């Protein structure tokens, strides 16, 4: 029996068989004209490029408006046309070295305040090194890369592919912003998830038309083209990628406006739901602007429904709105407001040891009422605080029957 028949048998016997077809393409494919891809001589071989201009204006605010909202520092004197948006389409989400970025989309603002798009697409895996070289050389004209989830996905993947193509440190010298964590900070408390499509739909009010290809189908579209030459569906992949780039620019602009408002105080609060006000309080906290922080958290408390007090004690102090509200109010020194908030919380969650601890601290130190503090201390299980309070109360000759738990 020949080797191939044996291999096929073996694979069949363990159920890992794969589809078989006869044609074995040896050379890379040609793109049909309707895709609009032009072959150019790149710095290290031929590349295939599609250019487009869209009327999307840059943000009206200075980049410094993102201070405190981004995980990375904002380079000094950064201009909007120093920013290069980047989004890749790949042969899979599995990660690891075997995934090919077959489409790299770039976008940037020029002096005309229009968004310029450029897409590099591979006709086959062999053209990748030339594309990566071209990408590196083109990106050198920009100071900063902006991506959506690129810190976890696009940039490490390009870096990996760079190493395989003997081009180490690809794009590593650039500053970069990932807009996903930015979106999470600003809108993550309101949205169920912060996928780019969700943000576009609910924050920007944009809906992609029915033509958009689901992300999961993208890898096979290109693989089919490489294997069988079916190029039609690639048009939807190019459109999808262009949407992603334009959407990113839109998200950046909207985020800049929100960050700007955060700095202006809650006079503009009416435009925001309580979750967004809470997000802006957190942003102000990161910016260490105590006044705005207090302003936004008070606005958030005013608008919040009481049911948001959900305390899950298994994970220590709750990372909830309520915990943030108590922390920020404490900072203002408005102890009566803190007391009211904690009392409100205890009405809803009478057994919460976290709330009892907050109350015990409050009545031991801030609004001295040691008897009350002792009651709360006993319910949050802090023996040392209980002992201390009992001692103090005994010293201040409180009748012993009050001290019994």
């Amino acid at each position: 029996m020949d080797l191939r028949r044996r291999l096929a048998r073996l694979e069949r016997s363990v159920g890992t068989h794969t589809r078989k077809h006869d044609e074995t393409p040896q050379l890379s494919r040609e793109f049909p004209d309707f895709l609009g891809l032009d072959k150019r001589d790149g710095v290290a071989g031929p590349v295939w490029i599609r250019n487009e201009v869209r009327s999307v204006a840059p943000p009206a605010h200075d980049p410094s408006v993102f201070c405190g909202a981004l995980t990375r520092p904002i380079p000094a004197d950064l201009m909007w046309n120093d920013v290069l948006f980047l989004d890749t389409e790949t042969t899979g989400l599995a990660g690891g070295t075997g995934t090919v970025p077959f489409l790299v989309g770039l976008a940037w603002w020029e002096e005309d305040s229009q968004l310029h798009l450029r897409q590099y697409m591979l006709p086959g895996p062999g053209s990748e090194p030339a594309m990566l070289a071209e990408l590196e050389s083109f990106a050198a004209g920009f100071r900063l890369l902006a991506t959506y989830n690129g810190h976890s996905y696009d940039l490490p993947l390009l870096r990996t592919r760079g190493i395989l193509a003997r081009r180490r440190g690809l794009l590593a010298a650039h500053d970069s912003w990932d807009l996903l964590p930015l979106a999470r900070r600003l809108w993550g408390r309101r949205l169920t998830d912060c996928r780019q499509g969700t943000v576009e739909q609910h924050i920007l009010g944009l809906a992609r038309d029915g033509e958009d290809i689901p992300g999961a189908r993208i890898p096979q579209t290109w693989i089919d083209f490489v294997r069988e030459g079916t190029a039609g569906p690639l048009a939807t992949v190019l459109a999808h990628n262009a949407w992603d780039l334009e959407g990113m620019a839109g998200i950046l602009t909207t985020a800049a406006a929100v960050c700007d408002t955060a700095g202006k105080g809650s006079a503009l609060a009416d435009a925001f739901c309580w979750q967004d006000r809470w997000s802006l309080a957190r942003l102000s906290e990161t910016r260490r602007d105590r006044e705005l922080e207090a302003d936004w958290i008070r606005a958030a408390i005013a608008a919040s429904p009481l049911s948001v007090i959900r305390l899950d004690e298994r994970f220590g102090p709750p990372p909830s709105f309520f915990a943030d509200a108590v922390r920020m109010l404490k900072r203002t020194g408005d102890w009566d407001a803190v007391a009211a908030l904690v009392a409100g919380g205890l009405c809803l969650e009478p057994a919460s040891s976290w709330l009892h601890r907050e109350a015990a601290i409050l009545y031991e130190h801030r609004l001295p009422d040691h008897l009350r503090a002792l009651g709360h201390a006993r319910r949050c299980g802090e023996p040392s605080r209980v002992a201390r309070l009992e001692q103090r109360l005994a010293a201040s000759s409180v009748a012993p029957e009050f001290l019994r738990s």
Partner: protein
Amino acid sequence: MNLAQLLDQLKADDRFLRNVTRWEVLPPRLARYADWPESLDPRLVEVLQKRGIERPYVHQAEAVRRASARDPFVVVTPTASGKTLCYNLPVLDTILRDPQARALYLFPTKALSQDQMHEVHGLISDLGADIKTYTFDGDTPETARRAIRSSGHIVITNPDMLHQGVLPHHTLWVKLFENLKYVVVDEVHTYRGVFGSHVANVLRRLRRIANFYGADPLFIGCSATIANPGELATELAGREVGVIDDNGAPQGEKHVIFYNPPVVNHELGIRRSAVKESRILAERFLAAKSQLIVFARSRMRVELLLTYLEKAGRKVGIKKGEVRGYRGGYLPSERRAIEQGLRDGSVKAVVSTNALELGIDIGRLDVCIMTGYAGTVASSWQQAGRAGRSQNLSVAVLVATSNPLDQYVITNPDWFFGRGPETAAVDPDNLMILLSHLKCAAFELPFDQGEPYGERPVGEILDYLVEMDVLHREGNRYHWMTDTYPAEDVSLRSAAPDNVVIIDSSQPTGKVIGEMDLFSSQEMLHDEAIYIHGARQYHVDKLDWDRRKAYVKPVDVDYYTDAQRKTELKTLDDEEGCDIGLGRKGLGEIGLISKVTVFKKIKLGTHENVGAGKIHLPEMELHTTSFWWELPEELHRQMSDAHLDLGDALKGVAHLLGNVAPAFVMADPADLRTLPMVKSPFTDRPTLYVYDAYPGGVGYARRVYLQIDEIAARALKHLERCSCAAGCPSCVGAPVDSGATSRDGARWILGAWSEARTAAPEADAARAEEA
């Protein structure tokens, strides 16, 4: 009384000696030292001298010499002969000189990695050098991984992690691969059979990636004694590996005693239980203040013996925590504490499954009692090696069970002492395994046309993968072209990773006391089982199979439970077959369905049966490929005419094939199993099955199918040459096992086959067509 006095007493004890079939004394061996190699960094020499190592043993010095000549080697010396220095010395020496240098250590289990980590760490802190050592496995937190990738000088991991977690992400490990000077593979002997063939391929991928980054690491291996360590290491390393086996470590006088428990029922030939006899012996050694290890073959026996020894220990003033059990199912922290206790002497005795056979460092003990033959000569010597101080006297006792193989070994000690340890085989070019790893390798780096991978050209297989839409060929390169992650689909070991968590529900928070693999849990954790853990009895209230949880409560009862597993064979797919002169050969897919059905309650101490119950748990199924030999129906009559029993004969042939076939198909004996059936429900005739012991099969059965003519011919020759009278483990199996007439019967069947084949030349034609 001390150990020497106890041995004198035993030598004079007629009742003891009556049961001893062999008392072998291995003379003491003196230490042989060499000078520190000149090339070695003086800081290392100084640190070792401070630790009391004035000079290296000859094998250690030889290791350093070969490493500096960049000559790959494998060290084969007994347990506790200072093997780890054979690789730690050259590795640390290299890193001291070149702080960029990196080394990768591979251990078969996480526990061994941890163990080694502590050892290297100790050396490094004595050196006061900035050499970073990390373990990298499934438990390594995500936050630590980045630091390990970029700054770990010595990264200690296991083959599974290398396969799924490191190689497919090699671009994150640039620093390691670029500067990789050493690949250290310890416990080389464990990498055999299917597992070893996988590991050889993982190492091929490792070399391919190291070469991509311009590195050419030196292979260093360590192995327990097997017949062919150099050959095995060469297969794994992919290049010629030399052997260092000139052991310079000293060894005190060692006594190896074969003990066969006395017959208690002559009519039925029943002997006293090996567990009971081991217990009595262990008590005598404990009383002589000897540090002791008792090996038992099952987890249940471990717990039984532990219960007994705790009681016995109390009589001679040994406290409860000084006798410990050690087996799978104990939590890692518990195991670490026991290992430490054995090293520092605070644990006086340990009862263990073969879990301690591997190189976990527990120091060396005075006495080893093996309750039952370990199954192979190599394993037996490894267990016996746990006893053996460098200066003092040590003892290893084999207590035989009534199992036929045990009885053969114990009554024919010459067979054991005259025989070398077994050969370990791997077949890295097994098509199924090779194919899996070629996919992984192509994912990691595109293949160039004509690029070597292992020994054989792989162009044809790559073309096949192109046809199957896995790879894409563009010009002279093969690129990975699907949206999957191939390493995820390839498991190096057959064992399922799923396990059952054991929860003590008498504790308010439901404390987890252990964990167990699915297969064993059906036998030990079924509803109403008495589960013994750390010599404490627990009643299993409920085994929640779907959630993989067993709820137990401590109890104190005077019985234990023993579950029975039944296995059935089904033919699922009859792929091909043809006439082979005497009957037909067939190949196809089979299902082995096993089910735990009932359990017995057995009284502690007397081992009487005091009750039983039913077990309702799902069947466990193994689907695999099988070869079968369907014999003619008239064989029944023909054989009874010749006064032979067909059942015995089939068992004999099955045993022979089980011995001979693995060598032909390059399998480990454990990878191939045989099943003789006097009347198979599928063929309706006497049939002999030889199947792959792995889910899905790995192609061994297919090779048996293709080569059955040669294999059967060799089996016949082997049988004719065997010098035994009525069968032995080397041929048709011990007579008590295979039956009194199995040797003659097997000879009859194979003889008939041989005649029929010579008479029917068309079988040869069919064979030629297939080859």
